[in-house]
């Protein structure tokens, strides 16, 4: 599980920072399996628009989500630099389309702040906390919450 500010005091974790919908996000590095170049996917019928389709990851069929669209920031525009972050969440392997991956951050858990008390519950759930680095605010993505809406369908 992801570290929470209360649970692990003063430990240093590595996060991968990336941008989606022109905003900065990050995921804890242990959740990430690999980062791939964007390749054409097979579209799935009857799926929400933020589900781009499925791709072949060495024989496994994994769904690809447009993270920006998932966060309501509009579809990620086609770009050569777009990458797919392959992440594991609760036994599922998924791919997240993002604009670019920028760097790996070493972050002391003490410096992760709680998500500001904003109105949208959906936002509060999908953002686990924020990290302030220099002038920038990087949002820590709660992968389970991001998947939650769809994972429920698998009956």
């Amino acid at each position, binding site marked *: 599980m992801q570290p929470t500010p209360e649970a692990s005091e003063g430990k240093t974790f590595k996060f991968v920072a990336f941008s989606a919908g022109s905003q900065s996000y990050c995921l804890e590095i242990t959740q990430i399996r690999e980062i791939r170049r964007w390749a*054409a*996917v*097979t*579209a*799935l*019928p*009857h*799926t*929400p*628009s*933020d*589900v781009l*389709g*499925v*791709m*072949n990851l*060495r*024989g*496994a*069929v*994994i*769904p690809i989500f447009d993270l920006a669209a998932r966060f309501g920031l509009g579809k990620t525009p086609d770009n050569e630099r777009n990458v797919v972050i392959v992440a594991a969440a609760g036994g*599922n*392997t*998924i791919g997240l389309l993002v604009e670019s991956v920028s760097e790996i951050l070493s972050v002391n858990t003490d410096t992760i702040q709680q998500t500001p008390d904003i109105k949208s519950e*959906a936002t509060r759930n999908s953002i686990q906390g924020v990290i302030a680095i220099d002038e920038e605010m990087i949002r820590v993505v709660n992968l389970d919450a991001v998947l939650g*809406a*769809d*994972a*429920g*369908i*698998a*009956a």
Partner: protein
Amino acid sequence: MSGQPSIRDTFFEECEELLEALVEGLADMEDPDHSKETVNAVFRAVHSIKGGAGAFGLDELVHFAHTFETVMDKVRSDTLDVDPELLRLFQRSGDQLADLVEAARDDRDPNRDIQVVVLAELQKYLGDEDEEEEIEFDAMGLDFGGPLDLTDISDDSSEPSSQMISIRFVPKRSLFENGHEPLLLFDAIAELGTLTVSADISAVPDFDEFDSDEPHIVWELTLETDESETVLHEVFEFVDSLCDITITVHRNESASEPPPAVVDLGLPEEPVAPEPSSDPTAAEPLAKPVAVASPSSPSSAASAAAPAADRDHRGPKPTLRVDLDRVDRLINTVGELIINQAMIVQRIEELDLPSGANLTNELEAYKLLARDIQEGVMAIRAQPVKPLFQRMSRIVREASDATGKSARMVTVGDSTEVDKTVIERLADPLTHMVRNAVDHGLETPEKRIAAGKDEVGTIRMSAAHRSGSVFIEIGDDGAGLNRPRILETAINKGLVSPEADLTETEIDNLLFLPGFSTASEVSNLSGRGVGMDVVKNAVQALGGRVSITSTPGKGTTFTIVLPLTLAVMDGFVISVAQETMVIPIASILETVTPNARDLHRIGLNGEVLRVRGRYVPIVDVAHNLGLERNSDSNGNGVLLLVETEMQELNALRVEAIHDQRQVVIKSLESNYGRIPGVSAATILGDGKIALILDPEELVKLNSGDVAPMPIIANQEELHHAAHT
């Protein structure tokens, strides 16, 4: 200490097999002409469980098995006759034994309520002889436990009742001329106790004087048994005049050492020499191993001979226990191999090599090999449905006990092999259906008699392979579905509108709706709020379907149709709205390239195809998947005729059919979820993913059928999810 759990595991694994043999034997005993060997097999099973349980200090299990075995033994020694009542008690005892084994394995307390009752009933058959049962049992262990359980015998050898019998067996030429085989005789003797066989080859002449028609070997047999000498004579009855036999009985003597000149031969090697037909040269190889083998102990020959004889008797094929994970890993890897093979073929085709290149032949061979490997690996997972059916016969017993109805179970085709996962995942749905069949399907004995039927109801389970699918049927000979009541219940629960005019099949299918239960009063057996919808979901999750047929007064049959394997299938590669997809061949009856004059519009959006005078609704695949069909491509496309589980014809419209191939099924559900109209995905030769269509669901999507179809609900959920 570390070795302990694994030996324990082995014991419980063995118990499973023994319990299976037990159930099988008990079922065979229902036949009034069952052989004595059947009774013995049941006895052996109980006895072996008892023996193992004793080693692990499972006292409760030992006690129960012992009582069971003692009653069983009375049947075996013909002091107790098997009547249906006793047979039922045996079956219930078998169930309890299984329970106890399970409880011991899981380290929990068994359910003692029924066990006490069963135990008491068993005791009734024992009566006063209870006290001496210990001795009586041990004695019995001798004659039949002998070949099976060697440890038992060594214990028993010290029993005062046992005796040593030496037999000198000198075959005459006529013995072999009449086609007798010493090995078979020895096997028969080995049945009676512990047998040591040795051959005296001192009379075998030199090679140049060897007459292959003349027997030269004299056999010395030492039998440790408590059977009387007369039994031995019975064995030799048919060969009496064809050989010289000397039988000497020594009471309470330990096995005499074989004479020094005598050579100990394993039984399997025995037939080589005296066979009249055998080539004279056979004597040469015989002489050497004999000389070398002389110091080996007679007991080793006995122990080698005994299990061999035993194996011949029971005849199960040797098996290998393998961790399921390993098999699954292998299957996955082989799946990858198949994909990889397809990719290589595609890459090589792209190279555009001159035709007739050797490479093409090699590629074809490679393809066949890969297929063979795959089929072989899949076969590892295939298992007969027998154990599953056996479990169900227990459910029938329990259910009929609980409802006060009498029911018997008939199984057909229980050697049909099905993927292990399918068997495991079918257990719960089948249990539910069998319970339903007894509880709701069968009438009470009074009603049955009134209807002129046999008082005892029949639950029939059958399994068969048919056209690439596995068919499993659960039928009862009860009153059939009460359609007016089903409809009434559905209307009362608001599942269908009162005005709806439903066909019989549609009414039958109401049973599969979530939250439907016909039992007006909830019995403690079925009707726990779990309905047939759970059954349907479980079967659908396996890629199968359930359907019902019912005739009033005659009974109801549920049919489950399942794919043969969960991992590969043959499919057409098709294109739909420029996407490449796969459709299972098994579901397609025929393909039609339609003439414009066979196509007719009906209603607002409906379209039908005329096939041999019938009008078949057309289902546009692209439209039903929410994809835009490329209107200017290929005119009317290609139509695939499919038949739904309701035996309705439909024509699926796709753009084109490209290829027919075997595809590896990859679940979409594991990482994403269910998508209406799509059953799974596969990976094509170019590494791209193609969706595998589910024709049945597509037809349902098209008809926009009754709201309760779970698929529609799913779709709404999806859309709902999209908006939140």
